[in-house]
């Protein structure tokens, strides 16, 4: 079970059970839907971006596996208050970590809980889905992100 504990870390199980920011933020002005057609994960990410380009509030709704739900929960907490450029940088670091392309990502400790995902190639898309969806929301509101 050693491998499984790497994947299903306590913080991931906790955020799956009680996801943070599972709501539509007041005054949200960006949103995008994300689908993982492989397993049926569906999430919508909402952002309220301030006139000077800050992510004032971030929320999500939808259903999916523990990895995608926890990833969305932790992501929305992590990027709140950032500039779009900072969020973009964090996307790259997170993406690099779960795909195994970056062994030394600079990320908040809680997001490092997803480091184990790289050992489970079939689950990388689950972890990445909320991030792709966030990026779509920031870049081009109304489009659907997909893991495919």
């Amino acid at each position, binding site marked *: *079970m050693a491998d499984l504990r790497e*994947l299903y870390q306590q913080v991931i*199980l906790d955020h799956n059970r009680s996801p943070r920011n599972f709501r539509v933020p007041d005054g949200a002005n960006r949103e995008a839907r994300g689908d993982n057609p492989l*397993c*049926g*994960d569906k999430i919508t990410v909402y952002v309220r971006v301030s006139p000077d380009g800050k992510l004032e509030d971030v929320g999500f709704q939808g259903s*999916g*596996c*523990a990895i995608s739900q926890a990833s969305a929960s932790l992501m929305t907490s992590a990027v709140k208050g950032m500039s779009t450029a900072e969020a973009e940088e964090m996307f790259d670091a997170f993406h690099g970590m779960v795909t195994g392309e970056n062994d030394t990502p600079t990320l908040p400790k809680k997001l490092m809980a997803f480091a184990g995902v790289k050992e489970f190639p*079939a689950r990388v898309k689950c972890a990445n889905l909320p991030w792709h969806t966030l990026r779509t929301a920031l870049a081009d509101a109304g489009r659907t992100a997909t893991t495919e």
Partner: protein
Amino acid sequence: MTTAAGSTRQGATSRRRFDPETVRTDFPILARRMRGKPLVYIDNAATSQKPRQVIESIRRYYESMNANVHRGVYQLSEDATVAYEWGRAQIAQFVNAPSPAEVIFVRNATEAINLVASSFGDMVVREGDEVIVSAMEHHSNIVPWQLLCGRTGATLRVIPMDERGSLRIDELPSMLTDRTRIVSVVHVSNSLGTINPVKQIIRLAHDHDVPVLLDGAQAVPHGPVDVVDLDCDFYAISGHKMFGPTGVGALFGKRKWLEQMEPYQGGGEMIRSVTFAKTEYAPIPAKFEAGTPNIAGAAAIGAAVDYLQKLDWDAVAEHERELLAYAQEKLTAIDGLRLIGTAEEKIAVVSFIMEGVHAHDIGTIADQEGVALRTGHHCTQPVMDFFGVPATARASFAFYNTKDDVDRLVDALGKVREVFG
């Protein structure tokens, strides 16, 4: 012919018992270890494993018979042609087609349905017409008809189902109108396991002179079918789901339809004569087989049929019924587990969800225990929507599965509870 999904199921109990251990050694992959444990393969509805006889057939073909079919005058080409046509004759026998000419080789069941939706659909469907499918179709029996409806301005209508995953056949008579051009339904559901009352559907449709296509991909792995007894107009099957190789499947079609239909694709093999002014098509089945076919695959599907025909299907059906009953009993005993699809007539497919755990997580944890089962929407998103679930986990059994496989699944689900509490 008494089979789990056969057209003449009588529910008779065989006097001889089927022992899966006697066939497991025929399937080399079943000896593999996965994550340090013996592999439990219960994703047979996605694809079945291949017996040594099928694998050998592919090797034998490429080692001793490989040439193109239906053209060389030399012996090797003749050998390849014989192997290819033998595969066709085997399929014809397995589904009791009146003639091998009514069996068209395709890539898979999906292509078989697309062929009918194109060639037959374009021939008979016009604006304002209707095509009927069911609520439990695989995407492969939805999308080709949507494309046809889009091309022609016809409407797709859907036979509903009930909470157990049985079709509401009582709705069908009122759905059949003088605008209905074809009914296309799944014989056995891949995500629910339901065996549909296809004879009744065909009778009702034929009363209105409406032809019927059956998607038989999930039926033939559980026993031979009889297209004459069913009286279906088309029957689609997939080689890799019936212990044959991937990349080859077959379409049975009644001669009267196949002869009227325009070709599906154009090219070599399917012509009688070609000039720039006009092309005359070859007679069936060649008319529908443009280009060099999957010759090795056709021969190997023949080997798969050969293998299947040696099984005692009464005993196999009984074994599969026991597996289903055992799996349903063990799984329903698990706290918070709900079965999706509890029709009275089912093959050994068990779809389920666990409270508080997404199917995808079940799949990952089961994999760590060496158990290969499918998680997701099983290419039946409308079925998932109907039951209000994003995805299910699905254990689908073949005759080589054992009660021990079920126990290993149950143990794996115990691990799921350990992780998720």
